[in-house]
């Protein structure tokens, strides 16, 4: 596996105003930390980070000021709409030690339960796995050809590549086939139904207190 190299520049400024100015220039503030090393404030190009995330290349070589370090993109902060990258966390890693990373879950085959009208619900869209940085699979493919309605597929049922372990317990449900949902007809509501009001919390206690006062 070839590790992509990411050009970063050291950042001397910190704080919301300075970071906002950087973001306006198409840059994203980042921080590199971990493995007993110092915290280094960096700046990355937003586009570069977006491309890396699109390709799910989370293990990178960060270069700045002639230095080169292996790192993992561990957290990315977005704006309220999830469009703009606000900040990137990079964690130092060793290529000879295992890392924890999220990998997408993909399905293979067709579940008999789905053809009978059931709905395949993916409970875990991604799984956190532990493995060497060089052995990170692109996705974890699960075979659903044996799933009938109301059947579950758990972590214990997975056929994982060698050297890969899932962080979640074996009983964690990854996907399930739900019974088909029925289309409800819109019922006309009676006017008295529309006027229904919710119960008021503490109303009973208040009534009791007022009754005692009147006595």
């Amino acid at each position: 596996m070839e590790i992509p190299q990411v050009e970063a520049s050291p950042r001397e400024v910190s704080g919301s105003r300075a970071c906002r100015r950087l973001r306006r220039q198409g840059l994203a503030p980042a921080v590199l930390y971990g493995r007993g090393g110092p915290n280094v404030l960096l700046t990355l190009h937003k586009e570069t980070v977006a491309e890396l995330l699109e390709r799910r290349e989370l293990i990178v070589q960060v270069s700045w000021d002639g230095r080169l370090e292996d790192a993992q993109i561990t957290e990315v902060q977005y704006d309220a709409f999830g469009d703009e990258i606000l900040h990137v966390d990079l964690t130092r890693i060793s290529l000879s030690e295992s890392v924890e990373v999220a990998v997408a879950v993909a399905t293979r085959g067709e579940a008999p339960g789905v053809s009978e009208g059931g709905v395949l619900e993916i409970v875990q869209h991604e799984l956190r796995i532990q493995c060497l940085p060089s052995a990170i699979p692109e996705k974890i493919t699960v075979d659903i050809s044996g799933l009938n309605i109301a059947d579950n597929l758990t972590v214990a049922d997975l056929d994982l590549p060698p050297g890969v372990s899932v962080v979640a317990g074996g009983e964690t449900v990854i996907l399930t086939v739900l019974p088909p949902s029925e289309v409800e007809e819109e019922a006309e509501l009676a006017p008295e139904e529309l006027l229904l009001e919710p119960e008021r919390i503490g109303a009973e206690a208040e009534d009791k207190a007022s009754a005692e006062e009147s006595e």
Partner: protein
Amino acid sequence: MPLMPKRVKYRKIQRGTLKGKATRGNRVSFGEYGLQVMERGWITSRQLEAGRLAVMHFLRGEGKLITRVFPHKSMTATASETRMGKGKGEISHWVARARPGQIIYELAGVPEELAVSAFARVAHKLPIRARFVRRRMHP
């Protein structure tokens, strides 16, 4: 039966303000696709129900729809031909508060083209602008 709380502490509440953007409930968390609002506003329980039914009818029971908001806020109205005064009106409906970025519905178990068409129908039933979003993976 339209959505409304089972129990409340106060029956009638003031309008209040709806500042800022959604900092929670703004990511697709349960399904694969979502409908995200781009503006702020109140979504009534009838609009939420209309959206839900539009999806259910369009998908004919296929897939799973998740509603991410709930109408917690009561709205009151005075009866027509009523003179001024005599206190606050009676509860007329319930609304959910939505800030920009809030995911209103999520869909799972359907192909993307179907989800796009289903949410386009729902977006027409909402009082504020909304867009289709996909699930994003965490690093």
